[in-house]
């Protein structure tokens, strides 16, 4: 009887999470695009729902809500479903949508997406070889095989992101690092941008006029086609077309310059906004938090195994909430930056895959922060994985990522002021 009650509670919460994922997808991620393939939205929401359920089960474990046997059952079921989604469904659909975008392969979409999925599975399997993650007594299709590999990928991702975040967070929010940007700087850069555009326009005008006079005189600017065409074009090329190619090269260089200037100007505007934001009340509050977090992050870099058992319980809750929120925000920004109407489906599915793997490995790693008495359920459910390996792997990648981010940001910070001093 209690099993039924527990199951209905779990299912209700899962439906709630599903709804939240659906809304997030519709209102935030896809607000500029039209959803034509509802499959994508469903997959994203399902992945989100099952990922959140795992965290919910951890909290239930700690708070001792629900019957322990039903908790165990739901853990197992949840894990099976999420592995099914992450290893079978999402990669298959990613392959399917990639193939749909390529015109040549459009006819035999299913065939090629199956091929892509098989390639993915091959590399996914090979991933397990160099790592000492399993004891050999496990069978081929066991949960442990799959989850160990998912865990490796997810833990690497988490460590990379955490390392970068640990360094970037103080860099972004502390006003000490904000370069001083004045309106004059921005105006100067804008003027350069417009001058470059004008130069491009005048060159294109010349090209258009040249092409027009050539056309009127009866010479048609043919691109050399075929073998004979190429031989002919070496010996007899009209002077007009030679001129054109020269100007075209200049135009290409100028266009590249204009793109650079555009991006730099956007960067300056963003910095200026950040400066203005830091002067507001909200900004000052986050600045203070930034100092606090930077100390925490620095601590983390140097003293990775600090927190005692009981403080860690509170931290587990905070970590869960902030990492979900942080991940969703980062995914959204990333999605806006790189997607277009053609690739939006593929990118959303990639994000769902990353999100799922991230959450699964969070569960693996959170075991480290949990008090000893609560670790047993995770150990029971996930089987005999070499947890210590994952913790050490996380630490290594975290350190590598943090140090390379420091180097990268240092170089970027150094280079920037000199660029803008240019006349």
């Amino acid at each position, binding site marked *: 009887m209690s099993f039924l009650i527990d199951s209905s509670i779990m299912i209700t919460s899962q439906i709630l999470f599903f709804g939240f994922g659906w809304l997030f997808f519709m209102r935030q991620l896809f*607000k*500029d*695009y*039209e959803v034509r393939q509802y499959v994508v939205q469903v997959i994203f929401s399902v992945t989100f729902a099952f990922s959140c359920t795992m965290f919910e089960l951890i909290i239930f474990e700690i708070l001792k809500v629900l019957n322990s046997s039903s908790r165990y059952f739901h853990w197992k079921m949840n894990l099976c479903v999420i592995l099914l989604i992450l290893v079978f469904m999402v990669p298959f659909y990613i392959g399917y949508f990639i193939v749909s975008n390529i015109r040549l392969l459009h006819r035999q979409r299913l065939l090629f997406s199956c091929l892509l999925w098989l390639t993915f599975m091959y590399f996914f399997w090979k991933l397990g070889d160099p790592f000492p993650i399993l004891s050999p007594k496990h069978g081929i299709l066991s949960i442990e095989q799959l989850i160990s590999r998912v865990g490796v990928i997810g833990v690497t991702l988490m460590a990379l992101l955490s390392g970068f975040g640990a360094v970037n967070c103080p860099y972004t929010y502390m006003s000490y690092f904000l370069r001083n940007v004045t309106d004059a700087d921005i105006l100067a850069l*804008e003027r350069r*941008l*417009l001058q470059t*555009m004008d130069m*491009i*326009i*005048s060159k*294109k*005008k010349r*090209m*258009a*006029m040249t092409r*027009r006079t050539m*056309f009127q005189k009866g010479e048609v600017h043919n691109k050399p086609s075929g073998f004979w065409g190429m031989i002919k074009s070496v010996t007899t090329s009209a002077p007009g077309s030679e001129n054109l190619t020269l100007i075209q090269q200049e135009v290409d260089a100028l*266009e590249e310059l*204009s*793109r650079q*200037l*555009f*991006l730099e*100007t*956007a*960067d300056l*505007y*963003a910095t*200026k*906004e950040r400066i203005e934001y830091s002067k507001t009340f909200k900004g000052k509050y986050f600045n203070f938090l930034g100092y606090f977090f930077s100390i925490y992050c620095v601590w983390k870099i140097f003293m990775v195994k600090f927190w005692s058992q009981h403080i860690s319980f509170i931290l587990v809750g905070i970590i869960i909430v902030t990492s979900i929120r942080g991940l969703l925000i980062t995914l959204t920004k990333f999605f*806006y930056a790189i997607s*277009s*109407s*053609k690739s939006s489906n593929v990118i959303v599915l990639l994000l769902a895959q990353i999100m799922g793997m991230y959450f699964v490995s969070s569960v693996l790693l959170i075991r480290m922060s949990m008090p000893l008495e609560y670790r047993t359920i995770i150990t029971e459910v996930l089987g005999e994985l070499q947890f210590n390996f994952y913790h050490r792997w996380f630490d290594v990648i975290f350190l590598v990522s943090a140090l390379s981010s420091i180097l990268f940001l240092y170089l970027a910070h150094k280079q920037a002021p000199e660029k803008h001093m240019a006349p």
Partner: protein
Amino acid sequence: MASLDRVKVLVLGDSGVGKSSLVHLLCQNQVLGNPSWTVGCSVDVRVHDYKEGTPEEKTYYIELWDVGGSVGSASSVKSTRAVFYNSVNGIILVHDLTNKKSSQNLYRWSLEALNRDLVPTGVLVTNGDYDREQFADNQIPLLVIGTKLDQIHEAKRHEVLTRTAFLAEDFNAEEINLVIEKRYFLREGNQIPGFSDRKRFGGGTLKSLHYD
């Protein structure tokens, strides 16, 4: 090439609707083989004989400024884009007939371009909803172009075209629906190749691409 002859036309619209292909078609009389994502703004020039054949014939260079990005971009990107909206003679709004959101976003695009003179971080009270008043005193001609008509199934075409006709009327704009197919290329002179025959007139004061 005195500055008096300068005609600047903006080409605006969401990512992936076909602005770069359209501009390439108009200026090079060729179909763009490998469209890639536009960063910032790309410009192209079309030579046009205004009032050809009459004594007042004059050759103009029409500059088509193809501005990349989306309406949901960060405000820093929007502020940077605003520098391109100075002294514009006309605006072409491009939307994808297979994507409804791109048509809805056209309102926000036009507001962004026309409100250039306000403070860049000015508050848009209407929040993207259409407000006819904002276009009432607009002197800049607008042209709405819908692309990818060929990708819509025959049966649905009428419904799509009716919807876009309403859109064009809202803007007081002229409307042309495009099929960019590989067949149409290398036509001569000023003929714009590849247009399907549907054109609608939405309002009185509006002029087409040919300026006085």
